[in-house]
C-alpha cells in the first residue's frame, strides 16, 4: 500500500491530528516506508489460523473476569476535573457544538 498526501489528510482527519501542508510530504514518505515493512505480511499464508488478540490465549485458558454490577468508585469528580483545561460547575467546557 502506498499513501498519497491527499489520502494522508483523510487518515489525519480520522485520527484527529492536524498535519500541516509543510509537513505533509515528509510524513507521507516516512509512513510509506513503514507500510513497505508492514506489506511483508501479505505474502504469509495464514489460512486456517485464528487471529490472536490475547497474548496468553494460545497456552492458557484465559477467561474474562466479571464482577458484581455494583458501584465501587467513590465520587472524586472535583479531583478528576482539577486537571482539566476548562471545567466549571462539574462540567467539562468545550466549544459550542449546537447553535
Amino acid at each position, binding site marked *: 500500500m502506498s499513501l498519497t498526501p491527499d489520502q494522508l489528510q483523510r487518515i489525519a482527519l480520522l485520527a484527529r491530528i492536524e498535519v500541516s501542508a509543510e509537513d505533509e510530504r515528509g510524513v507521507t514518505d516516512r509512513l510509506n516506508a513503514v507500510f513497505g*515493512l508492514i506489506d511483508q505480511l501479505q505474502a504469509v499464508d*495464514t489460512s486456517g489460523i485464528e487471529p490472536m488478540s490475547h497474548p496468553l490465549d494460545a497456552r492458557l485458558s484465559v477467561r474474562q473476569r466479571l464482577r458484581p454490577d455494583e458501584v465501587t468508585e467513590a465520587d472524586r469528580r472535583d479531583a478528576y476535573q482539577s486537571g482539566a483545561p476548562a471545567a466549571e460547575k462539574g462540567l467539562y467546557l468545550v466549544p459550542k457544538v449546537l447553535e
Partner: protein
Amino acid sequence: MLNSTLSALGAALAAKQVSSVELTKLFLARVGALNRKLNAFITVDEEHSLAQARVADERRAGKGTAAAAGPLTGIPIAHKDIFCTSGLRTTCGSRMLASFTSPYDAHVIERFDAAGAIQLGKTNMDEFAMGSSNETSHFGPVLNPWDVARVPGGSSGGSAAAVAARMTPAATGTDTGGSIRQPAALTGVSGLKPTYGVVSRYGMIAFASSLDQGGPLAKSAADLALLMNTMAGFDARDSTSLERPAEDYGRELNLNLAGLRIGLPKEYFGDGLEPDVRARVGEAVRWFETQGAKTLEITLPNTGLAVPVYYVIAPAEASSNLSRFDGVRYGHRADKYADLAEMYRRTRGEGFGTEVKRRVLIGTYVLSHGYYDAYYLQAQKVRRLIAKDFADAFARCDLIMGPTSPTTAFALGAKADDPVQMYLNDIFTIPAPLAGLPGLSVPCGFDARGLPVGLQIMGDHFAEAKMLGAAHRYQQATDWHLRAPKEAPL
C-alpha cells in the same frame, strides 16, 4: 553505597549503619550532580522523597502504626514517568502531559509505597514509550553514561541510564517491544520484562494494551527478583491481571545449571549482528556450557515477521488508547481553534511529537474500513504463528539465549530520521511480548569501543524465577554487572 545491591542496602538500613534519609540524600545528590549531563530524570522533588524517607526510618525503628519493615523499606527507587503518581507529575515524556499530575497512583506505585520504598523521581522516556533511543522525549534525549554521544536505548532509557550511572539503586520500566531489555543492554544493566499479566497495568499509561508489561531494572538479577516480589501480583482493576498465588522470584537463584537445556535460535545469530555482540554472547553461552548446561540450535522461523506484525498491532492499539488525549479532560489544549473538531486536531497536532503522530496515523490506517482484515487481522494471525514458534521451541529447551540487541549503543541522531531502521533494531526483543513471554537482559561484556553488550534470556510463561536463577549464577561468576560507566565514576 552507590554500587551496593538492594539486599546490601537493606542490610545496612537494618543494622542502622545508614538511615533512609541519609541514603536518599546520597542518591539525590548523585542525581543533582549527573542529571544536567545525562537528562535521565524529568521530575525530582527532594522534599517529597525526604518526607517518605523520614517515614521509612520511623518504620524501620518500629515507631508508629505502619506494618513491619520489609526488604525495600527506606530504599530509593526511580519510576519511569509512565507510572501515575499522585505526589509527582506524570508526563509520559510528552508535551501533552507536561503539567499533568494524576489524581491516583498506579498499582506498581502503591506496591512500592506499601513496601516503604522511596520515590526518588520520575525518569525520562520516549514519548508515550514509543521509541528505541529516548530521542522522542519532549524533554530531550537521555544520554548514555558509557558515551554521551550515544543513545541509552528506549523507551525506558531514563531508568536504564539512571541505574547505570548509579543515580538510583533500581528503577521501574515498561516493555512493549523491548523497552526494558534493549535499554538495559545498551547501558550495561539488568532488566526483566515479566510474563504478560503478572504486573498490573493499572495507572501505567497505555501504549499497546495486549503487549505492555511493567518490570524492573537494576544492577543484578538478584535485585530484579527482589523488585518483582513487590511489583507482581493480582489487581482487579486491570482486566488482564492474572489471578495467581504470590511467588518468590528469588526461589531459584541457586539454579543447578547441569543439564539445563539452552536453545540458541539460529535466526538470532544471523547476518546483521555486530561481530563484538556475537562474540560476547557466544562467550556467555560457553560459560553456561562449562557449568553443565546443554545447548542446542533451535529455530524460530517467523522471527523476521515479528517487526512487521508489531508495527501493525502496536500502532493499532495505540491509536485507540491515545484517543483519550483530546484536550477535554486533562493535558494540553491548543490555544486557538474555531470549533470542537479543530480543537481536537490542533491539540493533538501540537501535543504529540512526530513519532507518536506517526504511530497513531499508522494505527488509524490499518484499522480503517477496507484495511482491517488485510492488515490488522492478518497481523493477529501471524502473531499466533510467532507464538507457536516459541511453544514448539520450549518443548525442546528450558531457556532460550541470544543477543538482546543486534548492536551496541548507536550514536545520537543516527536513526532518528529513519523509522524503519529504528524499528528493525528491535528484532530480538519484539517476539517475546507478541507471545506474552518473559525475557530479561543482563550485561555480558563490552565491544571494542567499551560499550556494553546484553545477553537476552527468554523463558516459557511464568519461568521468571528460572531465568533469574540462570542470570544470577552467571553474575556470580562474572563482574560485568558491577562495572560503572566512565561518564559517571563512582
